[in-house]
């Protein structure tokens, strides 16, 4: 058995007005008919709080597309959870925001693709920048804690300084600059989105300079591009160790991408209690702790630090979910990552004739 989870990730819906090419949702999206009812979510929040979970992160898809989102915020807050809403801002009217605040929302994270309408639309597939700016303006008028999220990739990383200045102008307390993580739809578009080494190095310089500058009371969190790292990230803080995700159809999952793993089965909140699923279900046991590890993780001194990295990445890149995360330089599969980087970094100077400079982007579909 392990400790209780710290946070519940509540994927309220897979429906979304945006069609971002870097979306980490699964390729197979749940439709509206499969979504949990209000009462089912309320029960999840009560069970989560009773287990000692502290935070609930409302996400999706776009959580605002749930007609009952205000009721759900209120229920989660009444259960004792700290409620964070992760949103595109599309559909956030002044009235809706005021209701969310009164319902007890603690924190809001608003995503932006770019400060340039064309560049933003190329990524999100829709023109919504004005709506997002308006959402930021409305949020600033409340007392909500406000984080701006910006996902970075090859197409915008060269403009990181301007992107940060834009985000600062929106008036948040925090800015999250996150490199794309290659799962789901993002993996489909990896060859268009993976930045070059030069871009990554420059972006680190920009962030280091920002750290030295007077910091305007705005904190910046940076999610590094893990293909360029030496060691993997402790994905999800370790499998089944910190986080519990409930997907729109009620499946309890250790991470949002876990459905790609062959032979994994997920229990559902419609049949089982959260407490049981956390402690006993096959999915949460599968890669918990260190027993499942192969070499080099099995005898690695860092095994309790990164927990072998990401299981989904191991599956997607090495074809084996119990292998070390191939981004680890100690992994014998690291050449798989290096060959991807080699192509990425070659394209810029002289694209081989069989590789077009830019591939068509694949936009996230939308479930009915």
């Amino acid at each position, binding site marked *: 058995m392990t400790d209780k989870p*710290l946070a519940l990730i509540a994927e309220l819906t897979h429906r979304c007005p945006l069609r971002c090419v870097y979306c980490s949702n699964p390729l197979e999206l749940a439709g509206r008919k499969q979504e949990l009812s209000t009462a089912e979510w309320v029960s999840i929040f009560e069970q989560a709080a009773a287990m000692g979970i*502290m*935070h609930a992160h409302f996400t999706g898809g776009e959580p605002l597309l749930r007609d009952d989102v205000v009721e759900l915020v209120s229920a989660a807050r009444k259960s004792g959870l700290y409620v*964070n809403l992760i949103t595109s801002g599309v559909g956030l009217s002044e009235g809706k925001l005021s209701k969310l605040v009164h319902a007890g929302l603690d924190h809001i994270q608003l995503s932006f693709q770019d400060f340039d309408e064309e560049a933003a639309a190329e990524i999100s597939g829709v023109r919504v920048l004005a709506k997002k700016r308006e959402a930021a303006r409305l949020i600033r008028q409340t007392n909500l804690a*406000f984080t701006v999220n910006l996902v970075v990739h090859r197409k915008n990383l060269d403009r990181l300084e301007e992107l940060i200045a834009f985000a600062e102008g929106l008036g948040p*307390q*925090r800015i999250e600059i996150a490199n794309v993580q290659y799962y789901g739809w993002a993996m489909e578009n990896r060859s268009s989105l993976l930045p070059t080494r030069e871009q990554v190095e420059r972006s680190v310089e920009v962030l280091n300079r920002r750290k030295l500058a007077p910091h305007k009371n705005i904190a910046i969190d940076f999610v590094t591009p893990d293909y360029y790292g030496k060691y993997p990230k402790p994905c999800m803080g370790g499998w089944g160790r910190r986080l519990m995700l409930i997907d729109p159809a009620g499946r309890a999952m250790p991470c949002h991408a876990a459905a790609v793993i062959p032979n994994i089965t997920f229990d559902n909140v419609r049949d089982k209690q959260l407490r049981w699923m956390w402690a006993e279900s096959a999915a949460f046991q599968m890669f918990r702790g260190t027993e499942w590890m192969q070499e080099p993780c099995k005898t690695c001194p860092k095994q309790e630090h990164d927990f072998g990295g990401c299981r989904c990445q191991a599956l997607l890149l090495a074809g084996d979910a119990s292998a070390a995360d191939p981004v680890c330089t100690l992994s014998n599969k690291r050449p798989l990552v290096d060959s991807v980087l080699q192509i990425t970094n070659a394209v810029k100077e002289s694209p081989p004739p069989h590789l077009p400079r830019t591939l068509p982007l694949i936009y996230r579909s939308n479930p009915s």
Partner: protein
Amino acid sequence: MIITDGAQPRLARGCRFGADDTLLVPEGVLRLKGTGAEILKRCDGTRTLGEIVGEMREQFVGMVESDVEEFLRKLNERGVVEW
């Protein structure tokens, strides 16, 4: 950030008390130990640092002003307390 005697510290946006002397913050949870919880409960935006120190010294023998100041400065760096 420097804190003066007349400053009125308060919890930053998105930070509030949870059950069992925990402080819920956007990125997670801080578990507060004895006097830390007592100091933070007094950070209501109306009491001054001087008043908080006075109350703490009355309640806890051996507490000195610099303990309170240092605690608040650290939490300010983490974005939890502002003034």
